[in-house]
């Protein structure tokens, strides 16, 4: 195996519940996920599908009412002596995680740049904080590195900006600072939790291009958490579609976008407004996601699925293999299932998408 395809983060059978006043909420119901070195994985799903919780588990940031029922999160890294280590992040104490992994090897960019910065500290200080803690740098070296990072994330006049407070910067600039902070300790993995949801389209494009650029330069592995399929198409190598605490479809980005198999993925793709047609109505997935306080019997998506079969209400579908990298959890892929094609509109749209690709070649 080449250096490129070494697994760096391996989530196995993760299962998490939350204890709430109303009862136990089964938020994550057996999630498997791989991240290889230098690759980008996107986790897509509606709010409440458990995509953020999965990543918070890896960072040890779960709330105190979380119960980890089973699973492991294996993280492979090279330690100071150059030896390769694999550890289970779920077995670590919060203190161990904080001292050795969070920020240092796994860093996170949060959704809202307005609330993830400290308003009372200059941005320079906030960037240097991580370097003092994790790298034991002296002040001068840290300052130089911080200014270099500010330049890297595309902030002009880095020297001057270094002394600015967050409120003196625009939203896009603030998100750049957050990225600079995340990069300050040279992490192996960068987790971006909806990094552009709070930003404008023009700035969104800029920030995504920036992260991709940095990823190439620093050989980072990146995990995106998002509900925007347009973003996914731009950045991801692999896509995990999550629904109600489960991964319902995984594949490389072309498989998910050109040959989706799961009805939920069909719905998500159809709901994207299409710039090429003048349809009167947008397709929308009927209903809303299930409340995991009462765990659904059978397939969690059955109630919203126009292609649901009798078996969907009885048993949860396993992941069926479509190709080497492509899996989908839907009974439609069972050999005994009736042959059901995706909706005509979506077919036409994917056909157009493929034609467009031809034009580009």
């Amino acid at each position, binding site marked *: 195996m080449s250096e490129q395809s070494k697994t760096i983060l391996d989530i196995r059978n993760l299962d998490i519940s939350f204890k709430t006043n109303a009862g136990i909420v089964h938020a994550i119901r057996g999630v498997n996920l791989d991240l290889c070195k230098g690759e980008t994985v996107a986790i897509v799903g*509606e*709010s409440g599908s458990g995509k953020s919780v999965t990543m918070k588990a890896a960072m040890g940031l779960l709330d105190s009412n979380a119960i980890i029922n089973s699973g492991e999160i294996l993280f492979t890294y090279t330690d100071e002596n150059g030896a390769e280590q694999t550890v289970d992040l779920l077995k670590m104490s919060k203190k161990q995680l904080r001292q050795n992994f969070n920020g240092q090897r796994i860093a996170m960019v949060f959704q809202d740049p307005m609330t993830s910065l400290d308003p009372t500290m200059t941005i320079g200080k906030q960037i240097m904080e991580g370097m003092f803690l994790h790298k034991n740098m002296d002040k001068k070296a840290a300052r130089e590195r911080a200014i270099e990072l500010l330049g890297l994330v595309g902030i002009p006049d880095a020297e001057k900006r270094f002394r600015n407070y967050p409120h003196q910067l*625009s*939203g896009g600039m603030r998100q750049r600072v957050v990225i600079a902070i995340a990069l300050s300790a040279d992490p192996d993995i960068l987790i971006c939790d909806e990094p552009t949801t709070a930003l*404008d*389209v*023009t*700035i*969104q*494009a*800029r920030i*995504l*291009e920036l992260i991709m650029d940095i990823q190439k330069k620093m050989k980072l592995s990146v995990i995106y958490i998002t*509900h*925007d*399929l*347009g*973003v*996914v*198409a*731009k950045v*991801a190598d692999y896509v995990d579609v999550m629904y109600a605490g489960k991964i319902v479809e995984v594949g490389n*980005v*072309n498989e998910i*976008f050109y040959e989706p198999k799961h009805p939920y993925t069909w*719905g*998500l*793709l159809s*709901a*994207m*407004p299409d*710039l090429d047609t003048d349809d*009167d*109505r*947008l*397709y*929308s*997935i009927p209903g*809303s996601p299930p409340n995991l306080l009462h765990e659904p019997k059978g397939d969690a998506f059955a109630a919203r699925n126009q292609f649901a079969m009798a078996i969907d209400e009885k048993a949860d579908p396993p992941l069926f293999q479509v190709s080497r990298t492509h899996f989908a959890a839907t009974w439609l892929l069972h050999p005994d299932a009736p042959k059901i094609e995706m909706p005509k509109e979506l077919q036409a749209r994917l056909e157009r*998408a493929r034609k*467009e*690709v031809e034009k*580009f070649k």
Partner: protein
Amino acid sequence: MSQPLLKVENLQQFFPISRTYTVKAVNGVSFEIYPGETYGLVGESGSGKTTIGRSIIRLYNPTGGKLTFNGRDITGKMDSDTRAMLRKEMQMIFQDPMASLNPRKKVADIIGEGLDIHHRASSRNDRAEQISEMLKKVGLSPEHAARYPHQFSGGQRQRVGIARALIMNPKLIIADECISALDVSIQAQVVNLMKDIQEETGCAYLFIAHDLSMVKYISDRIGVLHRGYMVEAGTKKEIFANPIHPYTKSLLSAIPYPNPEVEKRRQSIVYNYAASGIDYAKGTEHSAGGSHTVLATDEEFAAWTGKQ
């Protein structure tokens, strides 16, 4: 063509920050909205699109310009009659459905507030009936009337916001980023609902958003704003098929396509106002055929369209 429902002429909205510094949030914007149509306003944050919405509904006092709504002048001091008309016929849906609903009021009272203020319900029963009618119209059930906003999901809350705007049976609804805070699949539900309601009641929308793909879906005509100036305006066909202003081009190029092979190769166009040498204050409105207009100086217009 019929009379415009809303006519905005040379609207200016300045905010004095200090004696020497004034923020010119909206700087001479003109457009018209006709009954039953949807006008989309797009632009980045800080471009003044929300300010325009708020000036039109008179949450601000416009610094200059003229607003005509429903055949009456609504600039400056209004007499009580005009004021009551404005408050009834123009409604607003806000961006954040949680922040815009009073958490201590039941949904029935949130929706019914307009009825109470304008004495539009003849009796308690009539009020309850109108409210449950409205809840059904926006896809909620009448039992929801007794609940509080926190008991709803984001999409449902936005439906409550829409119901609150609709109950007055307005002629114009200003939708200020009303779907930006929602998930993709829920966005589609809300946009479809808004389209259905328009078909049924014939109300007009001023749809304010930064998401061009959704704006294209819902709007008949589009105005592109940047730094308080309307840099380009036209029907959605004109704007999408033939964008002229570099800012519009950059906005269009920034829309992510759900097509990975294409998207990975595409770079968005960067538009830098300061470096481009364009001065909006010098530009005048140029027609690019039909209702398509561009803000530019003569030389810029010639350069962008490639004609003399």
